[in-house]
């Protein structure tokens, strides 16, 4: 408990989290600290590129291990099961219509790549460097949740056969070829090919300014999250807020035994828990606009972006790190 507390404090006074809080607070008092969209998009590409490349270089050093295969498997299982659990909880304890519940479930089953980046950085800061292949685990966890959640929603949508064939195609494109994932995995492969000499050539861009650029990006993300919470406040009720605060920990608990079974080290285990706990707010919303147009963005975005993301960034990550250390040993 004490360890969690120390980790949490260290995390809270780290510059990236403080800049996130600045952006979030700015939005609440009416100062718009967002970056121009062109820049926000570029920074997210930069972060994917950097984290993917670093992961690839690490993989080149580590080699492909059984743990990598097991971790990919664990990620797939989590991304498929978490939506089911989230959906059941929402149907039991909230009054969300089925389609909204399924949409929310998709978000919590999938992952937030920004949370992943921030967690990687925070874990390295406390000496829990995750394995390089966790990048691939993050990538693989994005999609299954969407498919499962669509099946969950399907019950209400038997009427939309014709459209859905078309929609599915667009959906797959939207999800599998979305630039974040392609850059992340592409940079991962490039890092694996070019190895340490490649890293030496680009570390002045990929490593040196990384934490600082993350600060700038989280300032923007904080502003967007704060805006999202302000604008979506009307759709929130106590039950939904409680869901958004508790569900991450349920996801992390589901991930814990899998991390242990897969034989992950503490850093990688902490990342797997974080991925399970995180909720998408970039890739999944775009996919659902096409696949589930009836679901209300104000519900799923406010929960994942306005409540869960800030909670994970501040309190969640240190807790998951502590849980992972406890489960697999420091």
């Amino acid at each position, binding site marked *: 408990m004490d360890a969690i507390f120390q980790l949490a404090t260290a995390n809270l006074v780290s510059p990236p989290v403080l800049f996130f809080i600045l952006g979030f607070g700015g939005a609440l008092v009416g100062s*718009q600290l967002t970056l121009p*969209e062109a820049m926000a998009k570029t920074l997210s590409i930069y972060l994917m590129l950097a984290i993917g490349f670093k992961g690839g270089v690490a993989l080149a050093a580590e080699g492909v291990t059984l743990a990598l295969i097991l971790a990919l498997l664990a990620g797939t299982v989590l991304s498929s099961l978490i939506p089911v659990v989230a959906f059941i909880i929402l149907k039991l304890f909230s009054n969300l219509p089925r389609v909204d519940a399924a949409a929310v479930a998709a978000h919590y089953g999938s992952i937030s790549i920004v949370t992943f980046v921030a967690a990687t950085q925070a874990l390295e800061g406390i000496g829990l460097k995750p394995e390089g292949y966790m990048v691939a685990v993050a990538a693989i966890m994005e999609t299954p949740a969407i498919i499962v959640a669509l099946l969950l929603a399907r019950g209400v949508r038997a009427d939309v056969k014709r459209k859905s064939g078309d929609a599915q195609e667009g959906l797959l494109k939207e999800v599998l070829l979305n630039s974040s994932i392609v850059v992340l995995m592409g940079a991962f492969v490039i890092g694996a090919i070019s190895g340490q000499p490649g890293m030496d050539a680009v570390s002045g861009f990929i490593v040196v300014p990384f934490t600082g650029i993350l600060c700038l990006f989280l300032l923007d993300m904080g502003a*967007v999250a704060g805006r999202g919470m302000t604008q979506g406040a009307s759709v929130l009720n106590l039950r939904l807020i409680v869901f958004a605060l508790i569900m991450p920990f349920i996801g992390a608990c589901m991930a814990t035994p899998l991390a242990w079974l897969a034989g992950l080290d503490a850093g990688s285990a902490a990342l797997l828990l974080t991925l399970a706990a995180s909720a998408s707010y970039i890739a999944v919303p775009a996919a659902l606009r096409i696949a589930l147009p009836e679901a209300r*963005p104000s519900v799923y975005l406010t929960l994942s972006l306005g409540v869960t993301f800030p909670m994970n960034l501040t309190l969640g990550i240190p807790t998951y790190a502590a849980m992972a250390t406890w489960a697999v040993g420091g």
Partner: protein
Amino acid sequence: MKTFKKKQLTIICELPLASRVVKTLTEAGVTGYTQFDAASGRGSEGEWNRDGLVGTSGRMVMIVTILSLDEADGILAQIYELIEPQMAIATIANVEVLRDDIF
């Protein structure tokens, strides 16, 4: 100068929907279209603002296409079916152009 009467169809929709709108227009045989980024706005789902966004959702674009009078009605019906369940609006206006043949 002699001008010719045409219809201008303007669609404001969320970015993830735009490629479908364009596909529908293209399959319906329009001679061209132009798409613009909107910066902010308000509609049935409340306010939105492009600033700070990373993905495609949450921001609107405007698609403009000049149509001949004949084709306008048919295209309108198809567009209506596509955008009806989505965040989107469509308007039609009269315009004149200088060359009859290219629209």
